[in-house]
């Protein structure tokens, strides 16, 4: 939820649009009419919000309610019961308690990676493109190099440099952030290149504004929706990426995440033993959380992206027709991030 606040700031087109139609809007973004910018409540948005808020609350609060997730009991693997709502693992550990701690761990990783990757991509993408020249070339080079860095051994290398106490979560965070910011930086760079030549930016420059001020005041607002959407997708990618690394045995050590939980379930032959209550919930939480975030992102995108505004128009028209036909109105929903971001999300297994 809170992650998405920046997205409701004013804006122009999203990156993909700009790539093919950079003529876009040339005027200053509207600074008024905030109400206009609130996404209209669609069923999908409602579902998305419910999922994100629900799972976040579960991750934050449930750990205070459930018992000790490591508590070993002699009873072994048991299906859900009144005492253990989601059953127990084969060492008699409470699955629900593990799920609570694991959700918290995964959310932590997701948010940290989201912040780190967004900051990195913003710095290298926006600042480089704004300054241009050698710096731009250098930053662009760096992005390309990071695009091809192999993540798999990087996990091991980095874990060797991270102090033991902060091992686990931080190792994974650093690795995931390092290997995921580059694609976003490229998109942001393209976006910035198109924005920085607009009249109001040029005017601001001519007026002698300092670079950081031009970036913060004139350019950044244009990029906020892209940044927000990248932030959200970085979270999803991080949660998924962590799960993937954990699956091949390189996950966050010494800490509970949904990925490591799935790893233990898989190694405990949860599926073969029919212990769905152990294997299904962690994956479902990841999937639903990711879906929730995407849905929220879409609705916001639909509102702030002028290119997609006609969607609402179409929807209204369709509804009217539907009403006339005395049918139940169905409503569509919105937009997405750039194809580049998408592809990182949907197929970003660890390298």
């Amino acid at each position, binding site marked *: 939820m809170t992650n998405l606040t920046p997205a409701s700031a004013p804006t122009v087109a999203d990156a993909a649009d700009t790539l093919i139609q950079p003529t876009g809007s040339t005027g200053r973004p509207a600074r008024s009419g905030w109400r206009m910018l609130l996404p209209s409540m669609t069923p999908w948005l409602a579902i998305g919000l419910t999922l994100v808020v629900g799972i976040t609350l579960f991750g934050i609060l449930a750990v205070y309610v459930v018992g000790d997730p*490591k508590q070993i009991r002699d009873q072994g693997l048991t299906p859900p019961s009144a005492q253990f709502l989601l059953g127990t693992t084969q*060492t*008699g550990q409470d699955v629900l308690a593990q799920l609570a701690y694991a959700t918290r761990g995964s959310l932590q990783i997701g948010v940290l990676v989201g912040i780190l990757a967004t900051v990195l991509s913003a710095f290298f993408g926006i600042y480089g493109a704004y300054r241009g020249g050698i710096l731009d070339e250098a930053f662009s080079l760096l992005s390309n190099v990071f695009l091809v860095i192999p993540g798999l051994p990087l996990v091991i290398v980095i874990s060797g440099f991270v102090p033991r106490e902060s091992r686990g979560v931080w190792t994974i965070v650093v690795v995931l952030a390092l290997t995921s910011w580059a694609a976003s930086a490229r998109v942001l760079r393209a976006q910035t290149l198109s924005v920085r030549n607009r009249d109001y930016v040029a005017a601001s420059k001519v007026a002698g504004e300092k670079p950081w001020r031009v970036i913060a005041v004139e350019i950044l607002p244009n990029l906020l929706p892209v940044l927000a959407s990248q932030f959200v997708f970085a979270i999803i990618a991080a949660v998924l990426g962590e799960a993937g690394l954990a699956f091949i045995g390189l*996950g966050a050590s010494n800490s509970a995440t949904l990925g490591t939980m799935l790893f233990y379930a898989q190694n405990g*032959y949860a599926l073969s*033993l029919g212990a769905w209550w152990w294997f299904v919930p962690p994956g479902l939480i990841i999937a639903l959380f990711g879906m929730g975030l995407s849905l929220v992102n879409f609705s916001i995108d639909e509102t702030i992206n002028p290119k997609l505004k006609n969607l609402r128009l179409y929807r209204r028209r369709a509804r009217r027709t539907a009403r006339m036909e005395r049918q139940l109105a169905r409503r569509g929903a919105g937009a997405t991030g750039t194809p580049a971001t998408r592809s990182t999300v949907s197929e970003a297994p660890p390298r």
Partner: protein
Amino acid sequence: MSLLTGMSRRAATLAGAAALGLVLTGCSGGTTSAGSEATLVAYTGQSGDYQINFNPFSPSRIGGLGATYETLFFVNKAKVSDLVPLLGTQQSWNTDGTVLSVTLRDGVTWSDGQPFTAKDVAFTFGLLKSNAAINNIGFDGTATAVDDTHVTFTFKAPAFVKGPDLLGTVPIVPEHLWKTINPTQDVVEKPIGTGAYLIGEFKPQAFTYAANPKYWGGEPKVKKIRFVALSGNQAGADGIAAGTVDWFTGPIPDIKNTKKNFPKYDAYTQWQNQMVLATCSSVQMGCKGPQTDPAVRHALYAALNRTQLNKLAFQDTASAISPAFTLTPSQDQFASAALTEKVAPMAAEPQKTAQSLEQAGWVKGADGIYAKGGQRLSLTVEVVTGWTDYITAIDTMASQAKAAGIDLQAAQSSWNEWTEKKGSGNFQLVIDSLGQGPAPDPFYLYTYFFDSNTGAKVGKSAGNNFSRYTNPEVDAALDKLAALPLDDQAARQPYFDTIQQAVVRDMPYVPVLTGGTTSVWSTAKFSGWPSDQDLYAFPAVWSSLDAAEIFKRLKPQS
């Protein structure tokens, strides 16, 4: 509920281990009759595709050892027993252990038709000596062919203890082909051996053995054996469930009920790996931490509830362990009569923990954990990320130790880092297992893990003795044992007594349990598998030499 056991650790491990799994794979196979019905499908737990390599000396070989290239004798590590004659029929040492005479089997031919003679044996050992990179038994003697069927090995110093390595692990290769081969580089795509099986076809996803119709022991009943490449133990267990794999050594879900869950299969477990909490034990060598105090190690030893540990972490596939590291029960005869405990107690003995610590000056603090001189009794156990059974074991031991006043913490790291820590001595405790030597004789374990020669200062890379145990008394006893025949138990026992007394007193490796190796095999398709009544080889498909023996004994069920 089973299985997070010893094996899931290996499963996890293997997921990453890819090629190295092959090292152990090498074995043999055989199969049967007409259709593919009687083909035995084996899976070793190795992960990833095969890369062709049938060179029996190569650590990355995928097969050939045992089944195609035979050794002089077969040493059954599963129990103390006589050598089984293969290419050799008789062997004897002179009294001072410097000359070993071996009589060879007559009338054996290589699979290309050439006769096998003593010259091949002399050539093979000459090859080892002149290529240090393949001489992994450290052979330093001279092999001479006396006549076609007699070979003598001469050594400068008594070499009794080299016997099992030399007779039981060195594959004999044909001189007429190998004299032009580079033994370290050649992958020997078409191996010619004396064994019961020939290499059939090779594909990166599978290779086969075909029965050798001219085998000296008679053509094996199982005519064809196929080794498949899968992604790891999970896949192996899936193969059993789907009925596509006939022999798999590794964990499957719900081991105890294998027969019920999969009526065509049975599971059989043998115990060889003595699991320990190894300590960086020696202050003198630079170790730091509470575990350098033997009293702490004894306290930990007594704090463990091994029955619970076995059930929760190892699904009851582990067994008791002797504090002297003589495998129990198969090596009980080597255990010193002076030992007060033949096996480590299965139940926790908190009063012993308390006694041991308090005598050494530790005092229980307000948080229930002992402390001494301001130092809390808190120990970190190093474990590899993904070894789920060991991690579960540490979790279980931590709660047991906590009850006894010791704080145990698990620290996970990648295999690479874990190996590095062990080698450099940069750890407090490591959960690991101590392996056996080439023969069922505790001498090898003692010389591997307790000899100060294989230790090193902290910061330097150690060999096997990563606990850095240093005891001149033990070193001296090991030297004496090396000069005594393996079968002269009366002469050897006093030295064993000395070693065992020191090992139990100092306890640089805290005994936990003996880990089991479980094989799941198809009893519907084949009979003749090893059993408690007839334990003729160690039942593990990845142990090439053992598997070769087993393949020869199997019969297809009609």
